[in-house]
Each structure stands twice: as structure tokens, then as C-alpha cells.
């Protein structure tokens, strides 16, 4: 299909189908749509937008149509992305199913697994969470001890996960379990199971931001059918690493700051500066000017990375660089916004501060360089796998 024709048609469709409310900038986490069995829509427009996009397969434009995707080429996907950005349209669905599990299932899943799970992910019917981290393992992800014992037709899972994002709101979990205690990396398997199974309980973790997006998750004799194993037995680490690359891509997007193209513009509002005068804090302005350079350059990097990824030209460890750079940038962004916000931004629950929105977002951003592999881990990976630096 001719690309310019596709662009014209896409633009027209988006303009006709994206509700006006869904073109407003995202103000807080509450504006995101996560779907799932217990989906909560903030407005009819939000639900409508999800349904319309899902019908075309455009929640996952480059997945095959057989699995609920849009079946678009890399070039078409890019055009769609650009047109969505140009319209300022919100993402119709936020989903770990899309950003993490989906790519892994497409690569490692059986045909049955793909047909069962992918379309529900695409339509936002099932909300997924990720069972990777364990207490005491930290950056050494493979040091996990949640056991899955072979009981003939099922695995019996016992153990504990931590940092499970929204485990208390998720319908299913993709989970790393130990199936061979004598091996480290080669004794791990990758399982999918329903969070409504018997023996699962979750406990939210109270964060410094005052929010609790993460849980501790406990498994007590949870039965998981054998057909829910993804990839080979004891080869789950390979699936996990592939998936982590996709997680890093997603997290690296944090640096983009929700389409806000200049931090100085954003800050001017926060600092109550008259529109026609320079930011009257010259040192903050200087920091913002350099930040805007880096943020714009990183937007170009993100475009380049996606293009190279689609073309199979990206270095396999490049997601580590994206994750590192994007998250560090996002932390700086929130630090600068706090500076611009001054004493108002210190308020924790006032109405004027939007319930401490700036402060909570600032504190939340500190986790960016920890979750999904710390910055230190990413730098180790870059040094070893891209730069070829020796180990001692």
C-alpha cells in the first residue's frame, strides 16, 4: 500500500474516531486506561476510544491480524505512531501484555497460547502482571527461589514475588519459577497463570510517593496446568531476557515526558511566570535549556532505535542504553519541575497541588532507574556486550 495514501486515510480515521477528550494531555495516572476483567474507565470516551482502536487492531498495530493485531508493516506502524502524536491522541490502552508478554509469546509461545492470550491482550480484556523480582534477589534476577514442582499434569508453585506491578489489579501473571534447584540460569521456567487461582495473595507495598503500585505476591500450593509453560522447561531465562529487552524499550519512553516538547514551557506555568518574560530563575533556566537539548536528542534516539529495531539493525543490548538514558533523563525532568514549582510543589495533599501531583511524580520517578533493571545493571550490560570491555 502506498504510504502517503495510508497516512491520509489514517489521519482521517483518527480525526473521525478519536473523541475530543482523548486528545487532551494526560494529567495524571488516573487518565490511563489499563483494561482487564475489572476495567475502570474514567469516561465513556475512554472506553469508546479503546473499543474503536481495538476493532482495527491498532492497540497492537504491528501484530498479525490473526492474533488481534493490525497487521501493519514497520513503515505503516511508524506513520500511525506519527499521526497519533500529531493529533495529540492518548494511548488507548496501557498494558504489560502489549509491551512485555506479547512480544515474548509471539516469539516463544505455542500456537494455542498465542490464540488464547494475544487477542485478549489486544482488546484489553485481560490485564497482566509480571512475576520476576524476589526479596533478596534484587538486581541478581536469576537468583530466584520460587519453586514449581512437577506434579504430572500440573506444576505446584510455592514462593514469593516482590515489586509485582499492580498485582492486586491484574487478572493473569507471567512468572519466573525455579524448576531445577541445582542450576541457576538453566533451572528457570516461564509460566502463565490466572491470579484467581487458589493459593495466591497480594499485599501492596507503601512507597515514598505515598502510592502503592507494587505488591508483594505470595504463592501457596498454586496449581498451574502444564500447558501454561512458555518455551522449554528450564529455558525460561531466555524468554525472560527477551522480554526484559522489551520492558526496557517501554521504560526508556519515560524520558520523552508525555509528548511535552519543552520543559521550559511546562515550568513557566508552574513558576507563575508571565508568558512574555524569561524564566526569572536564570540558573534553573540554564539547566532546563540543556535538558531540552538532551530530551530532544533522545526523542531522535528513540525514533532511530525503533526504526533500527524494526529493521533488525539494532544491537541486541541497545535496549539497555535506551532504558538507562531515558530513565535518568526522566529523573532530571522531575527534579527540574520540582525546582520550578517551588514551595507549592512541596504540598502533599492540597487541592491546589492536585494532591501533591508534582511531588509524588518526582518521587515516583526515582524508581525508574531501579525497576526493570537498575541503571548500574544497564551500564554493566553496555560495557560488556556493546563495548566489549573485559571482566577482571
Amino acid at each position, binding site marked *: 500500500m502506498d504510504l502517503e495514501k495510508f497516512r491520509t486515510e489514517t489521519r482521517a480515521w483518527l480525526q473521525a474516531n478519536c473523541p475530543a477528550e482523548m486528545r487532551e494531555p494526560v494529567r495524571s495516572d488516573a487518565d490511563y486506561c489499563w483494561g482487564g476483567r475489572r476495567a475502570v474507565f474514567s469516561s465513556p470516551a475512554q472506553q469508546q476510544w479503546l473499543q474503536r482502536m481495538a476493532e482495527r487492531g491498532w492497540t497492537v498495530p504491528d501484530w498479525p491480524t490473526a492474533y488481534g493485531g493490525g497487521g501493519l508493516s514497520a513503515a505503516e506502524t511508524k506513520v500511525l505512531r506519527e499521526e497519533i502524536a500529531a493529533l495529540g491522541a492518548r494511548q488507548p490502552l496501557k498494558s504489560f501484555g502489549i509491551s512485555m508478554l506479547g512480544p515474548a509469546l509471539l516469539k516463544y509461545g505455542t500456537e494455542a497460547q498465542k490464540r488464547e492470550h494475544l487477542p485478549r491482550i489486544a482488546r484489553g480484556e485481560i490485564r497482566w502482571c509480571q512475576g520476576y*523480582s524476589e526479596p533478596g534477589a*534484587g*538486581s*541478581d534476577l536469576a*537468583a530466584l527461589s520460587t519453586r514449581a514442582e512437577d506434579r504430572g499434569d500440573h506444576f505446584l508453585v510455592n514462593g514469593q514475588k*516482590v*515489586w509485582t506491578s499492580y498485582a492486586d489489579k491484574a487478572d493473569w501473571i507471567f512468572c519466573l519459577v525455579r524448576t531445577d534447584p541445582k542450576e541457576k540460569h538453566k533451572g528457570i521456567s516461564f509460566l502463565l497463570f490466572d491470579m484467581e487461582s487458589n493459593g495466591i495473595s497480594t499485599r501492596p*507495598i*507503601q*512507597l*515514598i*510517593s*505515598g502510592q502503592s503500585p507494587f505488591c508483594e505476591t505470595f504463592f501457596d500450593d498454586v496449581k498451574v496446568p502444564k500447558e501454561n509453560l512458555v518455551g522449554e522447561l528450564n529455558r525460561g531465562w531466555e524468554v525472560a531476557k527477551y522480554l526484559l529487552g522489551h520492558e526496557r524499550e517501554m521504560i526508556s519512553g519515560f524520558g520523552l515526558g508525555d509528548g511535552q516538547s519543552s520543559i521550559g514551557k511546562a515550568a513557566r506555568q*508552574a*513558576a*507563575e511566570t508571565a508568558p512574555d518574560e524569561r524564566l526569572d*530563575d*536564570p*540558573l*534553573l533556566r540554564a*539547566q532546563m535549556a540543556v535538558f531540552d537539548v538532551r530530551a530532544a536528542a533522545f526523542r531522535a534516539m528513540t525514533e532511530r532505535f525503533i526504526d533500527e529495531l524494526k529493521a533488525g539493525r539494532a544491537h541486541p543490548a541497545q535496549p539497555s542504553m535506551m532504558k538507562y538514558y531515558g530513565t535518568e533523563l526522566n*529523573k532530571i525532568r522531575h527534579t527540574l519541575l*520540582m*525546582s520550578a*514549582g*517551588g*514551595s*507549592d*510543589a*512541596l*504540598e*502533599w*495533599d*492540597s487541592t491546589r497541588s492536585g494532591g*501533591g501531583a508534582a*511531588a509524588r511524580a518526582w*518521587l515516583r520517578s*526515582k*524508581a525508574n*532507574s*531501579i*525497576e526493570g533493571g*537498575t*541503571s*548500574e545493571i544497564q*551500564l554493566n550490560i553496555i560495557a560488556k556486550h556493546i563495548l566489549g570491555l573485559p571482566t577482571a
Partner: protein
Amino acid sequence: MPLYLDDDQIIMRDSARSFMADQASVAHLRSLRDAADPTGFSTDLWKRFVEMGFSGILIPEADGGMGLGHVEAGIVLEEIGRNLTPSPFLSTGVGVVTALGSATPMLRERWYPAILTGRAIGTLAIDEGTKHHPERIALKAERSGKGFRLSGEKRFVQHGHVADVVIVSARTGGDVDERSGVTLFAVDGNAAGLTATPQRLLDASLASRLTLEGVEVEADAVIGEVDGGWDTLSGILDACRAAAAAELVGVADAAMAITLAYIRERRQFGVPVGSFQALQHRAAHLYSEIEVARAAVLKAQQRLDAKAPGAGRDVLVAKAMAGLAASLAAREGVQMHGGVGMTDDYDIGLYMKRGRVLEELFGDTNRLADRLAQLNGY
């Protein structure tokens, strides 16, 4: 005078340190916070501060105080910072006490004894915008009878909702942003027309918006000269900035200490996290920043105590540098803690929050460095 604590000061530091660790540790902050305490600090603890003589550190001996200096006040503040102790010490024992040093005997006699005995706490109402610009005063004071009538708003007033006396900067002449035409007033906390709306901040402290609607004060509520209050205000700000800098050093030092303790013990990949060279270098850099900040703070305190000309410049350096060190300590602290550093169960996040409030108080690093550059003629 050598640039380290003398023997008397070390005795005082040791006593403040054990007192605070014992009576006012981070657990104390947590219990006040979790109870959503409406005062913002423990009045019982403040009584014990008073018993230790802390509220009178800067009050002259002739007025019944300890007649000590900014070095000694800083000793207490560093321990407050180290333990994240909610306390009106800075606003009352440094801010208001310094302001009253320029007041009439009548005002001093009214407030010094009350502060010394713990009957009164006080605060400063300086800022009107969301960033610190002490010359940006729109709050008006108009002659009214023998006194003045004050109308306007102030923000970010620490303990403003429970203060017995509030030092208010007002405009009696000149335009907003001008340094002439500024007058300081000591206003009763329960004066008619004064409303304080407290807001919980991210560090669980309470700061107020103050509204003054035709608040009437007597002529002798004026501190310093009418229209000529800028110099007095500058002196008060010097004292408060040095104090906030000292507290920041305490925050930074404790944040580093708990982080070092954590990475010495925490193991990953079979070794202590603290054995990784990349973390070691960052920790060593952080240590250097904090040491340099500590030196700058002590220098500023000594120069203030010596009433050295140009000490205000040392104060700018001290608070700006302490802000750099404390924000680095918090950033590195949370990152080096990893995931648990993001949880409310660990203390490191509390240091990050308190550091952020202190950074904003009386001017952040950017503002103060900008001012220093101006004084340096560029």
C-alpha cells in the same frame, strides 16, 4: 580561630547528638506523621529542647539566654537534620530570636522570656511567591492611628498555624522588588484579621498560607527602621540560611551513613553491593561533597558570629553548597538502596523529602548562587 569545633562545642555536639538520637529519632517523626499530628511537632519534645536551653542559644546572656552563636545553633540543627526531628527550633530559636535582636526593648521583653520558657514559639512570614524572593513584597502596611494596618498574603510559613509571634515583612513604601520601603513587624499569632491555613508538605511538616486582612499593630511592633527594614531582614535571612544549611548537612550526613550501612551489608551476585567499584567511587565523591559543604557551613557560622563584613556571602556559599550535597546524598541514597529505597519502610526516602523542603527554604541553590554571582559583579 581554627576552622573546627572547639572543645566546648564538641561537648555540646555530643550532648545534642545523644539527646536527639534518644528522644527525637526518625521513629519520632514517623509516629507524628502517621498520627497526622495537627501541630506538626511534639510540644513535649519542645519542652525538653527548652530545658536543654536550646531555645535560648542565640539570646544574649543579659536577656537570660545562653549568649552563644551560630556555630552552636548549627550544632543543634545538624542533629535535627540527622534525626529528621520536627521542631520549631529554626523558626523560633534562630529566625525570631535573631529578628528580635533588632527590636525595641519592649518587644524583646515580651517575647524573649516566653521563648526561653517555652511558652511561645514563632516564625517568619517572608515569601509571597512560590519561589524565595525576599524583596518581592506586595503585602502592605499603612499608617493607621499610632500604628499600622497590614493587608496581604504570605506563603510557606513554617509552623504558621501555631505560631505565637510572626515576623512579617511588609511594604511601607517603594515598589514590589525594591529594597527600600520594606518594614518588619512582629505580629501576634492571634491578632484579629490574621488567618493561617496549614498545608501538609511532602516531609509531613506543616507550612501555612497566611492571610492578613487589615491586621492592626502598634507602632512599636516595628523591628528596625520603618522603610529601612531591608538590612535587618538580610541579617535575619543570613542567620536562617546558615541554620538551614546546617540542618541540610545533618540530612546529607545521615542519608550517606544509612546508605553506606546498607551497601556494606546488602549482597548481590555473591558479594556486598558496597564492594562494587562504581558505587564506591560515587560514595567517595558524595563524601567529598558533604565534607566540603560542612566546611563552608562552619566558615559561614564563624563569620556570622564574628560579625565579619561580607559574611552574607559566606552564607550564600554555605546554603548553596549544602543544598548540592544534600540533594546528591538523597539521590545516591535512594538509588544505592535499590527497590527498598522506594518503600516507606526504609528511612532514605524521608531524608530525600526533608532535604527537598530545606532546599526551598530561604532560597534554593540556584537562587543563592545567582545572588553570589551578582555580588561578584557578573
